[in-house]
């Protein structure tokens, strides 16, 4: 292909880059640049191309079990209209999933934002019951305790995020820019072994949780989900297909398996937290009318739980995306 004679205007390119999902940004933006003729042609080509790329990334990153579980949780907690509104938003968010772990500054900012929102909620409730509510039996001491709890929430969430970031930094399994086919096969085999052990252990734990849940009168749908997930994990033969013979095919196989295992883990992380979310919702539904404090505390608890699961998913998912990206650039050494 001929080299491009000129380059697109910076502002236009920045807009196009923002619209392209991160997973396809490098190659699609490069292709658009390579065929650049003038700003109008560039913009028109981007407008024609980007929707296909977004839909394709939505399909690729779609995790039907996780989405169904999230949908069910939203439906139970917020109702049908909210589910209809939030499901496409969740799918779109998946299409624009970052190709790496979130930067520490952003991760900490999210934690501070969440705890600040909890504090604002508290202030809001305090302001609608001036000076301190006596109705509902809430005394000034309780409000002060709540305020202090919200104040300590920020460092706790920041520490949790920092812990995840540090754990991610410690694990850097593949740093070489070139590997032989044999070395890649060894790395893949070790990954398969690790996945197999983890799946068996988690399958047993899920089965145990399902049995306990049955005796503790959990929601039957939830018990069923735990049983299904346990059976799937225990039956899942990770190394079903043989190992590819050449470097390129083996790398593609490794990338597909990494993505598959990560999709599975994303679902399982939500599944483990689902009973707590359902229990919190049951408490919310059963709270006496006018007891705004219980409602407030439960809402804050749900928000924190969702933050914890999302943080775990972003950190672990980001690490897997980094690994897939690293494999993309890996050269074969002889």
């Amino acid at each position, binding site marked *: *292909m001929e*080299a*491009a004679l000129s*380059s697109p205007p910076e502002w236009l*390119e920045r807009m196009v880059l923002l619209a392209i999902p991160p997973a*396809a940004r*490098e*190659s*699609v*933006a*490069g*292709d658009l*640049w*390579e*065929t650049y003729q003038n700003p109008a042609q560039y913009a028109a*080509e981007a407008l*024609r*191309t*980007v*929707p*296909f*790329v977004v*839909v*394709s*990334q939505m*399909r*690729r990153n779609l995790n039907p079990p996780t989405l169904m579980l999230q949908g069910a949780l939203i439906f139970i907690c917020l109702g049908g209209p909210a589910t209809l509104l939030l499901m496409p938003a969740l799918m779109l968010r998946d299409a624009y999933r970052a190709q790496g772990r979130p930067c520490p500054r952003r991760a900490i900012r999210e934690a501070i934002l969440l705890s600040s929102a909890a504090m604002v909620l508290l202030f809001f409730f305090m302001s609608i019951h001036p000076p301190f509510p006596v109705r509902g039996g809430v005394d000034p001491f309780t409000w002060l305790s709540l305020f202090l709890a919200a104040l300590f929430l920020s460092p706790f969430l920041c520490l949790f995020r920092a812990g995840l970031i540090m754990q991610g930094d410690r694990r850097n399994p593949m740093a070489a820019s070139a590997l032989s086919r044999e070395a890649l096969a060894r790395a893949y085999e070790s990954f398969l072994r690790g996945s197999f052990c983890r799946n068996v252990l988690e399958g047993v734990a899920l089965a145990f949780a399902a049995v306990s849940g049955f005796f503790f009168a959990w929601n039957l749908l939830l018990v069923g989900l735990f049983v299904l997930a346990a059976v799937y994990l225990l039956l899942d033969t990770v190394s079903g297909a043989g190992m590819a013979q050449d470097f*390129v*095919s083996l*790398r*593609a*196989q490794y990338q*597909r398996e990494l993505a598959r295992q990560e999709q599975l883990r994303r679902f399982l992380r939500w599944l483990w937290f689902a009973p707590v979310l359902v229990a919190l919702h049951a408490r919310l539904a059963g709270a006496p009318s006018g007891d705004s404090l219980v409602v407030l505390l439960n809402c804050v608890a749900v928000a924190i739980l969702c933050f914890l699961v999302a943080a775990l998913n972003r950190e672990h998912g980001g690490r897997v995306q980094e690994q897939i990206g690293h494999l*993309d*650039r*890996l050269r074969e050494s002889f």
Partner: protein
Amino acid sequence: MDSLGQFEQIVLTAILALEHNAYGVTIHAKVEELSRPRKAARGAVYATLDRMEDKGLISSWLSEPTKERGGRSRRHYRIEKSGEKALRESARTAQRLVETIAQNLGGLAWKPR
């Protein structure tokens, strides 16, 4: 094994024909050439490439960044064994179609244009 759609056959054939130079721009150009007179959207080519990669029919990797692409890499594609098998199967079906049409439409004189 899933059978290939028509557009998938065209994209796979384009990758096969381009050998070591198969990436977004060249694949799109080849697809347009193969599917003449119809135009093919570049986005549709990307979507098909993604789908076939997920099925394990092709594999991809990133090249070194180049200046003519604003310092960005090319995503190169290569056909896999399963892709070759699927394409051969499609070619056999197409061959049978051509023969049947030739027998019924214009005898031995008929040739696909």
